[in-house]
């Protein structure tokens, strides 16, 4: 079993955990947490394909990951701000109750 396969198995497991968390949790923060896990599973894939790919010399994979982390941080900030706004309106952060935007 080569290291690439191992890395991919790990990232798949991480993604599955994140997906399950995002789908099954009712708490908005935990859903955001799941989404972060899925993002980082993707980052692991970037690094693995770069490290065990045909040209490991150029640092393309690391740069991609850096961008993704920056974007994820911004996304987390926006998500948390939304969560706070939702909390101000309904005094909790349960997503099942946050249906007011339904047309």
């Amino acid at each position, binding site marked *: 079993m080569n290291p690439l396969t191992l890395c991919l198995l790990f990232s798949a497991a991480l993604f599955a955990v994140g*997906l399950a968390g995002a*789908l099954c*949790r009712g708490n*908005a923060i935990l*859903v955001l947490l799941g989404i972060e896990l899925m993002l980082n599973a993707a980052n692991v894939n970037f690094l693995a394909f770069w490290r065990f790919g045909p040209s490991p010399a150029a640092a393309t994979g690391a740069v991609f990951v850096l961008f993704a982390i920056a974007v994820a941080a911004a996304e987390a900030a926006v998500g948390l701000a939304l969560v706070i706004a939702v909390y101000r309106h309904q005094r909790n952060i349960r997503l099942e109750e946050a*249906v007011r*935007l*339904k*047309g």
Partner: protein
Amino acid sequence: MGLAVQHLGFIPALPLLAAAVGALTPRRGRTLAAGAAIAAISGSLLLAVAALSTALAAPAVHATANFAWFDLGTGEVALGWLLDPLTGVMLVMVTAIALLIFVFSLGYMREDPNAARFFCFLSLFAAGMLGLVAANSLLLLFVCWEIVGLASYLLIGFWFQRPAAAAAAKKAFLVTRLGDLALLLGLLWLYDAGGTLLCYAGGAGCLEPAALAALAGRTVAGGLVLSTAVSLLIFGGAVGKSGQFPLHVWLPDAMEGPTPVSALIHAATMVAAGVFLLARVHPLLAADLAVAGAPLHALTVIAFIGAITALLGAAIAVAQHDLKRVLAYSTISQLGYMTLAVGVGAWTAAIFHLLTHACFKALLFLGAGSVIHAAHHEQDIRRLGGLAPRMRRTFATFAVGAMALAGVPFLFAGFWSKEAVLHAAAGWPVSCLPLDLGLAGVALTAFYMTRLVAEVFLGAPRAPEAARAHENAAVMTVPLVLLAVGAVLLGFIGTPAWPWLQGALTGTRLKPGPLFENGLLLAASILLVAAGMGAGWWLYVRHPRRTATAPDPLAAGTPTWWRALAGGLGFDAAYAATVGRLTLWLAALADGFDRWIWGGAVRSAAALAEFAGVLGRQADEDGLNAGFDGASEGLRRTGRAYSRRQTGGVPGYLRALAVAFVVLVVLLWWGGGR
């Protein structure tokens, strides 16, 4: 001091100016309007006297001042002023009578709030009448004729709040308009034949021998001489204006106007305009006498119409019980005498009678006005009575006027002028019927005037209004006295012994004849006057009416005749049954035409448009709208179906996303093989 003919226009211009002042005066400025009217007519009187003296200095000359009104293709329409003795005496008569009546109106209209308007209309009337008299052009005469008709309409309807006055004004206007139409046609025909409407223009005027010979030399349909046809049309105008049979019906109704108006317009001056017109165009009327074998002479028609009117008016006056209507019918009768005189060729006698009649009829009407004013607008002679001791001056002057009208011999003007008319009629070679009718009228005139005086002034008062009457102020009685003096003295300017007026009018020096030329005729007429007055005395003075409701002694004797005469011999009813019904029928026809033919066309067009509208609406509703409605209903249904899936729950969305992702991956895996 004389007045040149070029300045003759000032005489009508002054009252016209006063009318303008009166028209611009507000209601409260009645003193200004009345002052302007009286000042203007006084000025006109002075100028008229000057004009008369000029005219009398050269009585045979027709002095003219013509000027072009406007160019008309090759020719021009000319107007002008004419000064001859006829114009002169008429100017003096109109201004003098008008001045007295204006002064009388000051008293009569004192309580009327619209006196300013009244004086404006009076001045307008005087301006029209003076222009009519002074006109050298028949066109200008016609214009003034219509101004006079308009003023008459306005003054009859002066109290237009009364329906009777409004109706009388309308009737007078329409009936005289009928005559005016004939006059206008006659003038147009005359213009067509001769090319001018100037009376005298140095040999080229339409009343001068050259034009008359041309007119008399042509015939129209049926051998009728052209001048006869034109003369009869012009006479039609005189029939309307002078209240001749059969267009006399407007004159009695015209008495709805204020009494000074009745005196000025409907007794003394305006109704005389027709007679004046006949005297003015007398050369034209007489032109066909020279034509051998003419089937009809215009003057014959005129004489018979005049005689019929003279008798008819006198007969109807016998049975009237309204003070002013008696006088109105007597005016019709007297105008008939004047027309008769013109018809038998004695137009100077007609003018003589016109002058004396103007004087004593103005006197009678103003006397009637004085009575009416004193008796609180009671003018039914059955309710008056016993006024003689209460109103001595009015009674004395009214009696003078009544005797002048009745033709009491020797002292009164009416006698001399009536004798002149009858004498001319006796000398008429065509027929003696007009003379007989006129003589019968003389007896009736004496009878009804005796009746009138007895009913109004003698006996005992039969109504509280009459019992409370008292004499009026000097502003009303002084004109009466002056007119009474005129009603006596005016007769002496035309007696057979000194025929000054006739000589002046014709421009020849007539030799004084014996005072009584035709002794038999004179005796007959005096006897008839005596018989008429005696019968009146027998019936009305000997047994004065006791109560206002007691029947007239004649009504008891001949009720059928009395009813017919009291109703004016049914002329009004006859006109209502013929002309009125024809008019109504035509109106109904026009109405039906409008309603069914034009209205039907309009309605069917409307129905067509409405039908097109309904069609369009159906197409809109069932075609276009149904399509749009169906489409939008479909959209709405789809939207409802989709929006059911929009729960708003984020976890649900995420799950759907995940499932879709998995499905996508599985599909790619299977389908791509890579």
